[in-house]
């Protein structure tokens, strides 16, 4: 789409666009270029010179069992976060949609967790499950279950998944609720006249009509669990125990800043860049579809 009416001149528009171009160049393009460049080198142990290794960093990474484990961890983590945040959200939205009065009050209460930063959410959940003072872990102990996410990798994963999914329930709820409100009431009523009861209407009419929203939320939640959950992991487990909760973004951080392995960290950045690119393409493909829908 283009404007028919344009103003003349070229100096003014260049001045207008300059701030964004300069900031993007300095804080975006240069660092991104650096990441690609550094991924082709290994610095010597004294940091004095760089040795060109071509795709060596990538070959090393892809054969590294810790890196591959981190890929698998990320996949499990993002699938679980997506499911644990979308299913309760859909359930709550379906219930709220059945109410004529009062759904606004529930909505106001339910959007609270969205405002809570992932890192703060991490601290809240850590507090509940803390091995020494946590309320939930204490009651689990009374029931005979010995909760210890500091030592047990599965429990650590469960805790970071729930803490990450918690705030996303609000977000998904808002989108599902809006989509449900947009489903034409006449269609639902017609089905009701034909004798279809609630769950039948839900499976055969409502859920298919929600599919664009569902697909959109799937992609957005995967992106969220890849990139925005660093705070949760860092506050609760710091990637442990034994790297069982080290997702890819956490590994870029721990290899780059904690272990100072710059070549490997840069190569990991490039791999993540490709992953983001693929996810973005998926997202745009979907948006095109939604316009036609």
């Amino acid at each position, binding site marked *: 789409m283009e*404007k028919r*009416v*344009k*103003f003349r*001149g*070229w100096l*003014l*528009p*260049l001045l*207008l666009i300059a*701030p*964004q171009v300069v*900031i*993007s160049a300095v*804080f*975006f*393009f240069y*660092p*991104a270029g650096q*990441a690609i460049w550094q991924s082709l080198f290994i610095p010597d142990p004294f940091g004095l010179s760089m040795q060109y290794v071509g795709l060596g960093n990538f070959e090393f990474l892809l054969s590294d069992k810790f890196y591959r484990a981190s890929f698998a961890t990320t996949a499990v983590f993002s699938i679980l976060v997506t499911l644990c945040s979308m299913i309760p959200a859909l359930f709550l939205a379906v*219930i709220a949609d*059945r*109410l004529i009065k*009062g759904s606004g009050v*529930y*909505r*106001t*209460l*339910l*959007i*609270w967790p969205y*405002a*809570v*930063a*992932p*890192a703060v*959410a991490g601290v*809240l959940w850590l*507090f509940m499950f803390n091995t*020494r*003072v*946590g309320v939930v872990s204490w009651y689990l102990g009374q029931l005979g279950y010995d909760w210890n996410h500091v030592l047990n990798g599965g429990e650590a994963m469960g805790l970071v998944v729930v803490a990450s999914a*918690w705030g996303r329930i609000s977000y998904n709820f*808002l*989108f599902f609720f809006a989509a449900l409100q947009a489903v034409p009431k006449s269609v639902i*009523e017609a089905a009701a006249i034909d004798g279809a009861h609630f769950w039948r209407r839900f499976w055969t009419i409502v859920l298919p009509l929600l599919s664009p929203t569902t697909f*959109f939320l799937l992609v957005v939640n995967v992106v969220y669990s890849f*990139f925005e959950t*660093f*705070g949760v992991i*860092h*506050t609760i487990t710091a990637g442990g125990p034994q790297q069982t909760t080290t997702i890819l973004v956490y590994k*870029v951080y721990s290899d780059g800043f904690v272990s100072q392995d710059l070549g490997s960290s*840069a190569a990991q*950045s490039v791999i*993540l*860049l490709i992953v*983001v690119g693929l996810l*973005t393409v998926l997202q745009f493909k979907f*948006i095109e579809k939604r316009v036609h829908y």
Partner: protein
Amino acid sequence: MAREVHGMVEKRGAGLWLTHVFMILGVLVIFFPIWLAFVASTVTQADIIRPPMPVWPGDQLWTNYKNALFSGVNVPVGTMLLNSLVMAVGIAVGKIIISLLSAFAIVYFKFPGRSLFFWLIFLTLMLPVEVRIVPTYEVVAGFGMLNSYSGLIFPLIASATATFLFRQFFLTIPDELAEAARVDGARPMRFFWDIVVPMSRTNIAALFVILFIYGWNQYLWPLLITTDPEMNTIVMGIKQMFPSGDDFAHWPTIMATSILAMIPPVIVVVGMQRLFIRGLVDSEK
């Protein structure tokens, strides 16, 4: 007839009650972590380290919050709140200003390199700061911007979501307005200030809400570049309050800080709910 159908579709009587019960249960479960944090911020450390902790608030609210705000653990939480406020407002205002200007240039002008710039800006949509942390850190360190507000703000406004939002919106402004302005001999910047900016008010407000929360909730970036506790933001500062050894964390102070960290974004989200939902839907389109 219509009445009966409504009865079938929207629940009444027992079904309605059940619906409310489910909804209230859902809200309670979702709220539980926040409630527990609030309770923990009103009791003493002794109440917490002997589990189970109480589930109703105690009488230490004033003591704990005063202690957190004015002494904290490493640095008073008041200082961290101020840092977060500067960072969040800086990111929101900075991004809105540069995006308004560049979207105006892209939509209303024809100039050399226009499509090249357009695509360059478009590319920045793709890469969150989490992915390019090491080289971005080096750039910021090179400029001597570690432990500074500009170091906290600038790298996070280098993304084009807002530019695209404004571009989409400008394209819906009727051409007649620009035509009239041109016939009247109005200069482009006059048109910008008198027509475009006032018409974008709602979009600007919605975007402000979203960007404020984005900035306030940042964690990784402040963690990397603010090594001086005086520059910590509240969201990253909470983790710094935990002792490194085997000591007990001082939970009442930490939980009071957690509550303080969520109050500003919650006020923004709940208080400006309609703008917030609009901004959320717009920025994901």
